[in-house]
């Protein structure tokens, strides 16, 4: 197991280098000049040229790549052109909201999706199953921004129960923080729960049809025990896979929810950094996302071994 983990973590290095290089090239080849954006569109050429020199943007692309890469190797992601702060600081400030939001959203989507999927598989063809299918269908089809705006309209503007938008760090009060996170987490969680419900249902249907299930029932076990103890663990691999994928995607930030709810997360930072051509921040975030994908996938594989004793590394 330990050797396996080491091997997988070592494989991260080439992936991150490759992703970093591709992103570096893509964003530097895109037109747009961070110096002009920083100084304002009316800035005189002289000032723009001076800032470009200060930022090292006048050097050949290969030199810039090399300089950047040298620093990355020692954990220095550079300085944000826009904020003038270290990229690591900027990203750290935006990371906690995204992690928190993703964790809450995942909990909500698993909390809704897994039971819904199990019930609709066990009661296949029933009204309940059709209901779940319909809701799941809605969840997949409804645009996230539409759901978000309607939730705000109802819970915040009409009922005045929850804040419209914003972010409060849990260190400043857990309850307040949760109140601010409730609507965005539910928006993201509900949309994703549809996918989880469908995957759980499909996986459960595969398992339920197998011989050992009939044996379990024949032994006289209660249907609850048959479902939860014998069927569900075998369907879990598929569920864990989906949850892992969803979580990786969420870690890259959710631009829609973060924008509507004004959560200073990684997604918002990435989009605004692209518009500002803040190269070091874009590169830093993409590296982070690549690393998050690899690590989460690794975690998913480790969880496989935990839920299925047949899997050994």
């Amino acid at each position, binding site marked *: 197991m330990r050797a396996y983990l080491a091997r997988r973590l070592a494989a991260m290095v080439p992936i991150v280098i490759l992703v970093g290089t591709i992103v570096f090239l893509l964003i530097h080849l895109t037109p747009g000049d961070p110096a*002009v954006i920083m100084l304002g569109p009316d800035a005189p050429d002289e000032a723009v040229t001076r800032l470009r020199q200060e930022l090292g943007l006048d050097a050949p692309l290969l030199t810039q790549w090399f300089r950047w890469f040298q620093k990355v190797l020692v954990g220095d992601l550079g300085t944000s052109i826009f904020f003038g702060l270290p990229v690591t600081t900027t990203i750290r400030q935006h990371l906690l909201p995204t992690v928190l939001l993703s964790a809450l959203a995942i909990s909500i989507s698993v909390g809704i999706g897994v039971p819904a999927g199990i019930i609709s598989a066990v009661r296949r063809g029933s009204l309940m199953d059709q209901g779940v299918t319909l809701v799941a269908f809605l969840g997949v089809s409804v645009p996230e921004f539409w759901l978000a705006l309607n939730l705000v309209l109802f819970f915040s503007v009409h009922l005045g129960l929850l804040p419209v938008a914003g972010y409060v760090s849990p260190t400043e009060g857990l309850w307040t923080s949760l109140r601010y996170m409730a609507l965005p987490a539910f928006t993201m969680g509900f949309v994703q729960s549809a996918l989880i419900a469908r995957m759980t249902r499909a996986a459960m249907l595969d398992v339920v049809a197998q011989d050992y299930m009939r044996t379990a029932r024949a032994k006289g076990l209660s249907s609850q025990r048959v479902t939860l103890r014998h069927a569900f663990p075998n369907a879990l691999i598929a569920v864990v896979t989906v949850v892992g994928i969803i979580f990786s995607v969420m870690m890259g930030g959710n631009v829609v929810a973060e924008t509507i709810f004004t959560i200073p997360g990684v997604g918002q930072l990435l989009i605004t950094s692209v518009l500002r051509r803040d190269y070091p921040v874009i590169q830093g975030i993409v590296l982070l996302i690549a690393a998050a994908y690899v690590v989460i996938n690794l975690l998913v594989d480790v969880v496989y071994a935990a839920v299925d004793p047949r899997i050994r590394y």
Partner: protein
Amino acid sequence: MRGMRVVLALTLAGLLGTVASGWAQPPAPQRGGTLTVAISADPPALDIHSTTAYLTEIVAWHVFEPLFTYDKNFRIIPMLAEGYKVGDGGKEYTITLRSNVRFHNGRVMTPRDVVASLQRWVKMAVVAVPFFRDDIEAIEARGASTVVIRLKQPSGILIAALAQPIQLAGIYQQAVADAAGTKRITELSELIGTGPFKFTRWVPGQAIELERFDGYSARAGSPDGYGGQKVAYADKLRFVIVPDVQTRINGVMTGQYDYAESITPDAYGDLRNNPKVRTLILKPYGQPMAVFNKRRGLFTDRRMRQAFLAALDMSKIMAGTFGNPLMFRVDGSLMFKESPWYSREGLGPYNRRDLATARRLLAEAGYRGQPVRWITSAAFDWAYKPALIASQQLEEAGFNMDLQVLDWATVLSRRANPDLYEVFSTSFIFSPGVDPPIQPVIIGPTWPGWWTTEEKDRLIGRLIREPDPAARKRLWEDVQRLYWEDVPGIKFGDFFNLAIARPGVQGLATRPDLFFWNVWIAP
């Protein structure tokens, strides 16, 4: 009995007085509370010398103050200065400073702070660099309260430039200004000014927090435009970054924010009748423009530019872009109606929509349907919609339009290359420092589009040097006449900005540049 009558009369008078004053006077200002202002994006910096960004201005000018500013009629008045004298034929400006003005750390401002700040600012400011940086012979402290600026040639725009809010010539402490040079200052602890508020916290992407500076040295008298007496009524001033416009609206409606800027004009109709918000039309605000590439290609020929202008119906373009008639105005004056520079001189060719003339000019210029590349961006309504509507009108006149919709950063970088376009979209945002010669957007020979003609350069040269206000106004009118004859670009009209506030927020001005001193929260 008689006494009784007197008492009754007095009581009645008192009652009437109370009623009358209740109607006539707004509630008395209150101290206290946190004023939360939702702004649409992060300012790129809080160092006000370092950028022309509007968001930097409206946040940081609560902290930094200039020597001069603008009154309610957009005329120059002293702020940290007491006054100034011009000598040596317009080449020596002697500025007297107010005494006992304190910085946030308690230090009293000295002429040395002013010298260091101005020396830094002239190396960084968009208005200073091309127009008088090289003309400055010296900026010197003299005595305990005087600063002298000596120039190699007379300047008619120095004081206007020192007063303009965008990239404000704010006064920093000498040590900070000297140490920073032209590098942007990012440390909040160094961003110490003399303003009514001081910085306390900055979380990029989230919020900028300021609190009242209790030792603020206010001017005597009453508030006047951007100057006069400033009072910080709110204990705290919080600028929160809220990129989504609907969220800004919802936040004000539910009381989470006290004020929100940059509201889409489309929302005006609904918001005006909503008792939970107050709408404020900020006037004047800006003008959408199209600027021609006069260095290379089709539009180096003046007749092509005149044909372009002749084809346009500005009323339709402005109405189609901004909708509600309260939010725009069709006016060809390059300087806004509210400014002392306003003039109707030379507006003849503006908003004529004369297809016959347009076709004749095109034929004379030998135009044979070559594509006209117009680079614009959907990031801003004022950029995209006029381009879209105008393109259709131009096609009707015989132009072959190639509308290229790009992201804003790409427009900014492409417009610097004369091989890549014929026309680009831009806007000129009103700033009370609009002394015309310092506006590169309209007259800049080195600004993209590159307007250089002998006559224009001569007029602008005189305008920069001429100190007499009446003579300067006449010179500007000549420039405006030339603009609409030579058509270096096209101003479509004026548009206004919409903001909303909670009804309890008092003392708000409907000025284009936001400020929250003299603003209080009624209980």
